[in-house]
């Protein structure tokens, strides 16, 4: 099979039982992953969860202890970094300080002995809107520009997979927002498979089609951002992606097509399809703060209700966040949009209500 034929056929990345250990420490603990060609895939997790190690193994900068890596039909586990059609945007950008911008961008093309590399490099610089900086040195550019050069330097090689290692970590908030949109635009323009490593859940949700949440070297849950947010499978995912109020409960029969959940002396209704199959012990009911409503005690439209005392109020402009202390001493977080509804005061007795369709269930931790 010729080089171009393989390239056309692939772009899909498959990790099989991938393991990486350092002496006693297990950084990556058996990861199985299928990343479809052309997708924007995020590896999300707290620092030390093994996401960067996974990325470096795909890049060829780290050797797996066990497992295989497939790029399209080819097993690339034992190939060297420079033999893989994979490029990385490094967290530190790692631009070559002795080369000007156009030579930085053209570095990979020249190594690949691509004829007429300069117009291609210029086109990549145009894609990141930095064509006018071609003759400058990296240190003459701002952090955000350097980041875009690093991106251009990687995508100009038309890799099968582009790896992004916390690429926006060093940028300030506003620039990060702009670059998130920019990255998304570029990805849809070039159609390369992007694998994006980040610890920022908002960043992952904004950009990725699919997110794999990692924890302690394993993949905790995989899915589309909205699926992960609305139906987290574990308490860890429920709290890593946004905030959750978790109430332990036991199943107590059914009524009208809904399951009765007994928790702290209250009975809440839960949709049966949200119950994880098989697990009947250590279940917890999760409700996002924005799904809770402050209701009057006489209002019966919401069937799931519980009473508590407001112990903290913070106003953030678009919303007001309350901490409501329950009789069993748990503090429940409630976010009330700034939509003109009545605000509660500190120390006030309130009733919280939610729709059974707006809660989720997680298994034991």
């Amino acid at each position: 099979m010729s080089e171009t034929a393989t390239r056309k056929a692939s772009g899909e990345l498959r990790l099989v039982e991938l393991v990486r250990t350092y002496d006693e420490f297990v950084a990556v603990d058996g990861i199985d992953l299928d990343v479809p060609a052309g997708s924007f895939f995020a590896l999300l997790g707290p620092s030390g969860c093994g996401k960067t190690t996974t990325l470096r193994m795909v890049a060829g900068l780290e050797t797996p202890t066990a497992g295989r890596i497939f790029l399209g039909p080819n097993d690339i586990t034992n190939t060297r970094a420079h033999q893989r059609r994979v490029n990385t945007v490094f967290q530190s950008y790692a631009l070559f300080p002795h080369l000007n911008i156009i030579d930085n961008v053209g570095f990979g093309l020249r190594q690949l002995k691509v004829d007429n590399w300069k117009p291609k490099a210029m086109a990549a610089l145009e894609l990141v809107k930095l064509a006018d900086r071609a003759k400058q040195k990296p240190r003459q550019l701002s952090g955000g520009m350097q980041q875009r050069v690093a991106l251009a330097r990687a995508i100009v090689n038309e890799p099968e997979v582009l790896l992004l290692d916390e690429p926006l970590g060093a940028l300030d908030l506003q620039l990060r927002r702009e670059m998130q949109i920019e990255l998304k635009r570029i990805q849809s323009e070039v159609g390369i498979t992007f694998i994006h490593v980040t610890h920022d859940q908002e960043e992952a949700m904004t950009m990725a089609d699919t997110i794999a949440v990692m924890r302690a070297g394993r993949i905790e849950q995989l899915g589309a951002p909205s699926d992960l947010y609305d139906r987290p499978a574990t308490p860890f995912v429920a709290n890593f992606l946004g905030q959750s109020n978790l109430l332990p409960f036991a199943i107590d029969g059914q009524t009208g097509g809904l399951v009765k959940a007994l928790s702290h002396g209250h009975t809440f209704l839960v949709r049966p399809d949200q119950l994880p199959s098989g697990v009947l012990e250590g279940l917890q009911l999760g409700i996002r703060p924005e799904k809770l409503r402050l209701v009057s005690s006489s209002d019966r439209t919401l069937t799931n209700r519980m009473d508590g005392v407001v112990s903290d109020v913070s106003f953030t402009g678009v919303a007001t966040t309350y901490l409501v202390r329950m009789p069993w001493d748990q503090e429940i977080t409630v976010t009330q949009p700034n939509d003109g509804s009545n605000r509660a005061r500190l120390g006030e007795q309130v009733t919280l209500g939610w729709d059974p369709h707006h809660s989720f269930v997680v298994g034991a931790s």
Partner: protein
Amino acid sequence: MAFAVPSRGARRTAKARRGFATPLILLAPALLWLIVFFIVPTISLASQSLQTGDIDNGYVLTWHFQNYADALSRYWSQFARSFGYAAIATIGTLILGYPLAWFIAHRSGRFKTMLLVLVVAPFFTNFLIRTLAWLIILTDSGPVTAFFRATGLTNLLQAVGLTDNNSLLFSHFAVISGLIYNFLPFMVLPLYSSIERLDLRLVDAAGDLYANGWNKFWKVIWPLSLPGVVSGTLLTFIPASGDYINSKLLGNTQTVMIGQVIDSQFLRVLNYPLAAALSFILMISIIVLVGAYVRAAGTEELV
């Protein structure tokens, strides 16, 4: 690397506030030192190189430029040999020193400080003693010569004209070895400081961008360590071309370097004008060579 340099405007106001007194006072000792021990002797040497006369009747300044012509025509081969030796020794120290500096900077772990001390350790002994030690190392009955003879390396060295008589001592080879040995630390230390600052993530990035081992070195590592290479080669080449101890102790009549000629013209022949002219030619040739080299290396681009 980018440094936070105060803006020109800020510097100007600071200057205006403090005036020039403080820097001048702080510079004064060094300036005085340079004037008394460098400027004045250089002028007197320049004048001496244009004098005529002899040691008994004294020397008079006659603007006798013929001294320079004499110096060049009689001793051009010693000049050429000195620069040749210095160039070979510089390349030799670079080849030996680069891997050593790399190892100390990136592979030595907790032994780093100890290894750096070991690099400087020869300086704890006197330069003469160190060079004399090479007499013993390269002696005909020593293990080094035995090894060279057993492996046939002596024949190889003899074939390229670096040694004679099936021995190592008192030859081009011995002089160059001595120079390499004596100047190796001057190469290793600047190389180390450049290589140590080198960001290894750039090497990862080069590999990620399809560079194989060879290209990682020549396209990324080597250009980024050039400041160290340039200062190391200067610190080796300049003193090595003026050196005369190595060739005096380890060489023969065919290895005479220009330093030896100056030494004997000043101290034995007592032809001061010729010796002064030789010194001046040496100084100016080094300045020209070094200037051309630094220009070619373009170091100001690299920092």
